[in-house]
């Protein structure tokens, strides 16, 4: 067995960290090595002494109910904090809303012009030509129609209304 491995196993054995099988194997190995066996015993005695030096009784535990109460109290405080935070947010929101200036609404009354311009669309012509007329062209045609053609009185009434 490797020297370093053996030392590690000896220490683990002294610290009580070896499982039974490995412990037995180690003991079997040490049976043939008196020096190492003595060293292992020394280590075990030392560790036992250290264990004894650290040994002390478990002190009496406090009641777990105290822990429960404390946790309950913490939860109540946490919830209270959330509620207060929410209320504060609402207050801030309302405050900001109140501070904002009111919107100025301007009411514009549109009046009908005194002399509305008569616009007539020469629909017949567009239909005849079968073209896709632009708005400008339609407008021009309408002006032309107003100038050159006699507008049907019924149509004129319709436009005025």
């Amino acid at each position, binding site marked *: 067995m490797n020297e370093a491995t053996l030392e590690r196993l000896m220490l683990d054995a002294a610290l009580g960290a070896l499982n039974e099988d490995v412990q037995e194997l180690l003991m079997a190995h040490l049976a043939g090595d008196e020096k190492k066996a003595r060293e292992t015993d020394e280590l075990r005695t030392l560790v036992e002494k250290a264990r004894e*030096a650290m040994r002390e009784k478990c002190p009496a535990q406090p009641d777990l109910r105290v822990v429960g109460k404390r946790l309950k109290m913490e939860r109540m405080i946490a919830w209270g904090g959330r509620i207060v935070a929410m209320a504060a947010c609402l207050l801030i929101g309302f405050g900001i809303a109140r501070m904002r200036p009111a919107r100025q609404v301007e009411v514009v009354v549109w009046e009908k012009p005194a002399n509305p311009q008569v616009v007539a669309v020469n629909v017949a012509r567009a239909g005849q030509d079968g073209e896709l007329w632009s708005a400008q062209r339609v407008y021009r045609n309408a002006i032309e129609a107003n100038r050159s053609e006699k507008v049907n009185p019924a149509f004129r009434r319709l436009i005025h209304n």
Partner: protein
Amino acid sequence: MADSQAKVEGWYRDHGGVLLRYLGRRFGRDGADDLLQETFVRALRRPQLRGEAVSARAWLFGIARHVGLSAFRRKRVMQELPEGVEARGEEIDPRIVAMREAIGRLPEGLRETLELRLADDLSYEEIAAVLGIPLGTVRSRLHHAVKKLREEMKE
């Protein structure tokens, strides 16, 4: 909720005493009760984290250590700690007294690891989890601690 509370109560019954002893030894006996309470309050807050730990004991020791160190940072409670393991009033073997002194002289990391193994009986894996160090480091710390104690006791 009730289920997790029952679990924590079980852990308290099983490990409360050992944890209190650990906290008293490490952070002073005066504040140990409070630290234990805080440990279990934290455990009750998030019992689901237990699943990620090596064992319930290792998990609780980890919390206790964290709680103790936080308290130490806040209040410097460790200043009141005795160096190493203090001698008690009773009649004791002078070799044990010498051993206590030798343990007290060990560097902090070595002493803590050795105490977790010998006083609290934690496995190497549990010690690694509590201290947040690799398993190999636990081994080497224990090795060094025992070696130093051996040298000191020979003198």
